[in-house]
């Protein structure tokens, strides 16, 4: 599939480089054209195996990865890439299918978009992901704050040297809070980064998971994780 691969590195180094991995050749062509018109530099490959090779051969700013592909599906590609390759990945999921967002998050997907989708929406998502990763500090091997130790690679958290029995969602919340320790993290961010979904007015998931997390941390008086009314949550640095 390498003959389909177009590599345009010389043109413009400021352009964000995006790799599209999708088995629909025509779609890839149009998507590349669209993204190029939005000032992205685009490479495209049409199957999972070529996708893994291409993603490892060159440094990209973002990868658009189709989940439904023959031979090697999107999740397998992602599993191959992580954790050595930290390029943000936007997964194109099949519309009408329910995907386990938490599992995807654990595997390191940065965003999901059901396909077919409006190209403007895709551009907006890519830009959002790029903004997020450019702002965020590089992933540390270990985050320490007070008595808390969080190890993102093994997805484990320790409080005063004892491992915390956290669920995936609880761990994700704690990690997101710990990365910005001492700062207020709003619910929208928590929902998107820890639970993999857009925050809605009626969704109480964050509050629920947070209250369980506090119980497990022995933080009943809410000293460690503070609620900032109308804004979000904050992990105190102590």
């Amino acid at each position: 599939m390498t003959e389909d691969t177009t590599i345009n590195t010389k043109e413009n180094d400021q352009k964000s480089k995006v790799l599209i991995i999708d088995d629909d050749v025509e779609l890839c062509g149009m998507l590349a054209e669209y993204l190029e018109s939005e000032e992205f530099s685009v490479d495209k490959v049409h199957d999972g195996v070529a996708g893994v090779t291409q993603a490892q051969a060159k440094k990209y700013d973002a990868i658009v990865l189709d989940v439904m592909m023959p031979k090697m599906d999107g999740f397998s590609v992602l599993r191959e890439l992580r954790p050595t390759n930290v390029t943000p990945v936007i997964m194109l999921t099949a519309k009408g299918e329910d995907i386990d967002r938490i599992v995807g998050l654990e595997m390191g997907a940065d965003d999901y978009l059901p396909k077919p989708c409006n190209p403007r929406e895709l551009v907006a998502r890519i830009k959002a992901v790029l903004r997020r990763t450019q702002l965020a500090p590089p992933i540390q091997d270990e985050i320490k704050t007070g008595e808390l130790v969080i190890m993102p690679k093994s997805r484990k958290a320790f409080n005063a040297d004892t491992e915390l029995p956290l669920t995936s969602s609880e761990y994700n919340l704690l990690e997101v809070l710990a990365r910005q320790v001492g700062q207020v993290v709003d619910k929208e961010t928590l929902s998107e980064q820890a639970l993999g979904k857009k925050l809605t007015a009626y969704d109480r998931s964050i509050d629920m998971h947070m209250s369980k997390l506090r119980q497990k941390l022995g933080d009943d008086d809410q000293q460690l994780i503070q609620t900032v009314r109308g804004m979000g949550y904050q992990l105190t640095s102590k």
Partner: protein
Amino acid sequence: MGNLFWKIFLWFWLTLILIAGAVSWGTAIYLQNSDAYQQRDLRSRYINNRIELLRQVIYYGGEEAASDVLENKRLSSRRTTIYVVDNNNKDILGRSIDMDNATLQKHEPVEATDGETYQIYSTQRPRTRNTLTRMLRPFQRSPGIYLVWLAIAILLSGLVCFGLAQYMSRPIRKLQVAAKKLSQGQLDTRVSDSIGNRRDEIADLGQDFDLMASRLQSLVNNQKQLLSDISHELRSPLARMQLAVGLARKKLGPDVSTEMERIEQETERLDELVGQSLTLSRLDAGAVYAKDDFIDIGELLESIINNCDFEATEQKKKVVLTIDNSWTILANGELLHRALENIVRNAIRYTEVGTRVEVNLNQQDKTHFKITIGDQGPGVPENKISGLFEPFVRLSEARDRDSGGYGLGLAIAKRAIEFHKGTISASNKSTGGLLVEVILPLGEVQK
């Protein structure tokens, strides 16, 4: 024990009792009659003997001896009267003879030794008992024993009929239960195995039922598969189309932006429809969606109604929400949102201009809450109500041609609610309009 069981049981039993009764009665009467025939034979011989005796008496003893014999009660019979008439044409006992009596019989005259000739007549008195009492006579002989036999006969025939009725009605009952299940959508219902090893029309019926059910199942599955396949196949061209529209928009500039917008809008509608039918197919296929969102039902309804209110206001309609209490439940937020939104949007669509859609949330019982959505529209014909939750149902050709029917909204709503172990039902309000009732379990999370 259904109606049929009792019908077969009682009718057969009654018939059996009646036939048995009639046969035994008839036999009894027959026996009695042949008995009576013999008796009559005996009787006439007895009378002849009597008369022969009388003749001897007259011959040897004359009138005096004959009078003694006739007056002797022991020699007379209750039913037969014998007259002896002398030369003066008078009965020797002075009794008058009714010459018109049909039973009057003239016997051979006797010439006594004294030279006088006597005529002998006899009459038979008719039987006093009427036909009915005669017919009932067999039963009168010894009522006790007869009643015991009667009871045994009734009991035995009852047992036989009970068995027969069971044998006939049970497989039919099973068929009926199976047919009901089938009609409720359990297309894998089969009866042959449960009917047992019979070889009769009922067994054939069972096999034909199974044949019908499997045909129905494959038809429905094919139809669902078709919907699912078409939707799947539509996704790729749709994705390309959206990109093409996006590209065209960029290249053509603002001149044709209204048209492009329209194309984009319609593409999005197609996209939405494909998404809906895929969701429906997946729910129908029993796919499992994650139920890991903590949803505040009251807030969910409020947000749906806030979203719909703008649309409703444009059409001069209103949506009013009444909440008694709110609960947080563990659910698939997207599905639940879509289900309730579909119902509310549907209500807004059909309520009359200038009226309002009323949405209520309240507790149903300790473990369930209830959401009702009532509109003030034309309602739905009673016989179409159950079809309301089927995909692409049209209630009446004329009315729905403009509106496009109920589409997929309510079909998805039903499946999504059922996925959450809830129930959904629709009914016409007495004041007009459709009322949709959703009952959902509270689950473990409560607030």
